[in-house]
C-alpha cells in the first residue's frame, strides 16, 4: 500500500493551519477567540459605548416592564397570567405562532430556493416583493386582509374573527424572515458538494436532505426563530381582522385591552411572559445551531 510522505500528512492547509497528530487535541477554540480580539477588537471604549447603548435602549425598558409586572408581588403576577382570558390568549398566540412558523419555514425555504436556483422573467420583481410585508405598515396589512377575507369578502371567503384570519395575517408579516435568512446561505452552498453527492449515487431528494439542508439549517433556524418571535408579538396586522372577541384575542391584544381597562400590572405580567418565552425560544434555537455547527470550519 502506498503511504504518503510525512510532509504530506502534516502539510499546511490553504488556511495555513497545521493540523496536529490525531491523538493530541488542539486548543482550537481558545486560540481563535484570542486571534479575533487581537485582530479586530474595538477596545474598551467601543465596548463601553455598546454596553451603554444596549442598556439604555434594551435593558432599561425591559427592567421597567419586569418591575411593573411585579407591582403586586409574585402571587399577583401568577394570578394575572393564569386567569382564563390570559391563558386563552397565550395559548392561541403560541399555537398559531408555531403553526405559522413551521409553514413559513417550509414555504420560505421553497421561495428562497426558487429565487436562487431558478431563472425566470420578473425574478427581480418577485425578489423585491418579498420585502413588502417588512416595509408595509402592519395595520395596512390588516386592512388589506379585512377587505379580502372580511365580512364583505369579494371572493366569498369570510374568515373575520376566526383563528384562520389571525394565522393568515401572521403568515403574511413573517414570510420575509425565513426567505431572507435562507437566501444568502443557499447562494453560498457549494455546487460541487452536490455534484460529489450525485456522483456517489445520491438522488436529488437525498442530496437535499443530507447535503443542502444541513448547510441551510443554521440560517433556517434563525429565520424561523425571528418569524416566531415576530408572530408572538404581532399586533398591527391582527388587530382589525381578529375581531378582538374574547375567544379570538392574541396576547398583544390582551395586553392592549388590559391597558385600556386600567389594569397595567396584568398587562405587564403578560408582557414579561411573552418576553421570557421569546427569549427562551431564541436562546434554545441558538444553542441548537451552535451544537449542530460546532465542527464546521
Amino acid at each position, binding site marked *: *500500500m*502506498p503511504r*504518503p*510522505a510525512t*510532509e*504530506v500528512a502534516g*502539510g499546511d492547509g490553504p488556511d495555513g493551519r497545521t493540523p496536529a497528530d490525531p491523538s493530541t487535541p488542539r486548543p482550537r477554540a481558545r486560540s481563535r477567540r484570542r486571534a479575533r480580539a487581537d485582530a479586530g477588537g474595538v477596545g474598551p471604549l467601543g465596548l463601553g459605548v455598546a454596553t451603554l447603548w444596549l442598556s439604555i435602549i434594551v435593558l432599561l425598558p425591559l427592567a421597567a416592564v419586569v418591575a411593573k409586572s411585579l407591582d403586586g408581588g409574585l402571587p399577583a403576577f401568577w394570578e394575572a397570567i393564569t386567569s382564563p382570558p390570559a391563558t386563552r390568549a397565550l395559548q392561541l398566540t403560541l399555537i398559531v405562532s408555531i403553526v405559522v412558523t413551521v409553514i413559513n419555514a417550509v414555504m420560505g425555504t421553497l421561495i428562497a430556493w426558487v429565487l436562487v436556483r431558478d431563472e425566470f422573467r420578473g425574478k427581480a420583481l418577485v425578489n423585491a416583493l418579498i420585502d413588502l410585508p417588512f416595509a408595509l405598515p402592519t395595520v395596512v396589512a390588516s386592512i388589506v386582509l379585512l377587505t379580502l377575507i372580511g365580512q364583505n369578502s369579494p371572493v366569498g371567503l369570510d374568515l373575520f374573527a376566526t383563528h384562520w384570519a389571525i394565522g393568515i395575517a401572521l403568515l403574511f408579516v413573517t414570510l420575509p424572515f425565513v426567505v431572507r435568512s435562507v437566501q444568502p446561505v443557499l447562494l453560498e452552498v457549494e455546487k460541487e458538494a452536490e455534484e*460529489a453527492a450525485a*456522483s456517489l449515487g445520491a438522488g436529488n431528494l*437525498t442530496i437535499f436532505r443530507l447535503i443542502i439542508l444541513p448547510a441551510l439549517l443554521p440560517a433556517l433556524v434563525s429565520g424561523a426563530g425571528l418569524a416566531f418571535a415576530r408572530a408572538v408579538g404581532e399586533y398591527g396586522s391582527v388587530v382589525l381582522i381578529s375581531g378582538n372577541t374574547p375567544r379570538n384575542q392574541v396576547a398583544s391584544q390582551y395586553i392592549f385591552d388590559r391597558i385600556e381597562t386600567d389594569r397595567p400590572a396584568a398587562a405587564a405580567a403578560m408582557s414579561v411572559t411573552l418576553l421570557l418565552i421569546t427569549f427562551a425560544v431564541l436562546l434554545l434555537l441558538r444553542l441548537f445551531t451552535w451544537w449542530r455547527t460546532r465542527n464546521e470550519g
Partner: protein
Amino acid sequence: MIAAENVEKHYGDFHALRDVSIEIPDGSLTALLGPSGSGKSTLLRVIAGLEVPDSGAVVISGEDVTHTSPQKRGIGFVFQHYAAFKHMTVRDNVAFGLKIRKRGKDEIARRVDELLEIVGLAGYQTRYPSQLSGGQRQRMALARALAVEPQVLLLDEPFGALDAKVREDLRTWLRRLHDDVHVTTVLVTHDQEEAMDVADRIAVMSEGRIEQVGSPRELYDTPQTEFVMSFLGPTATLRGEVVRPHDLVLSHEKIDDGVAVIIERVVHLGFEVRVELLDEAGERVTAQTTRGRAAELGLYPGQALFVRTARPDQIPAL
C-alpha cells in the same frame, strides 16, 4: 474502456468542445492537458454526466451512457476544491456512497477503515474536514470516490488548490496508488509537468479540440503540432526551426550549419544552465545546457559562440 465519440458542447456562444473523440484504455491513467478554456474540464464533466453534450456519445465499458445520470455511471469524481461534506466526519464522508447503496453497517465500517488506511488517514475517522489540511482533505475526497468501487476515477485539477510541495508529494503518491488500485483514471490538469509525471497517456487539448494523444515521451519528442510542442516544454527558434532549448549545441569552433551568436546572459539554475543568446540579426535564442558543459565552455556574457541544432542521432536515448 471509456470513449467519447464526436462530442460537441456549447455554453451559449462559447464552443467548449469541438467534435472531440478519445478512447481511454482500461487501467490507464490518462491526463487531459491544456490551458484554461481548452475544454478539458468540460470533457471530464461530460464523461461524468455532470454536463450533457449537445451531440455525440459517451461510452463506458461498452455501454452508451450519454443520457445516463451521474448517479448511475459508476464513476468517482474528485474536485479541485475537495467538495467535502463539511458537516460530516471523515468517516461519514467516506461512507456516504456506501450508505446510499445501503450496505451493511459492519461492511461500511470495515471498508472505510481500509480506505483511510490506503490514503494515509487512518486514525482521522472522527475528524471534521475543517480540521484537516488541504492535502488531507483531497485524500479524503479520493477515499470517498474510491469507496463505491467506481469503474472510472475522474480527477478535476485535484492538486490545483495545494501548495507546490504538497502537490508534488501527492502526485507521486497518486501514481503509486494507481499502480496498486488499477482503476481507470482520467486526470485534468493545466500543468504539463504534473501530466508527464503522473500520467501514462496524455491528451493535449486546445480550444475545444484534442491536439494529440500519446505517451509523455511521444508528445515531448514528436509533437505533431506547434501547440503541443510549445505546451509540453520550452522552445527555441533558430533560423525558423522550432526546437527544445536543450537540443541547441554550443561550440567555440565554427561549425558547418552553425549560427554565430553573442552570449547576452548566463543563468545558473543548479544542474541546468540557461544561456541567452543574440544572433547576428538581433534575434534572441535561449539555449539550455548542463552545469558540466557550461564549465567546459567557460561561458561569459559578451562571448562569441556558434550554435546549431543537435542532429537527432546525437540526442541521447533514455
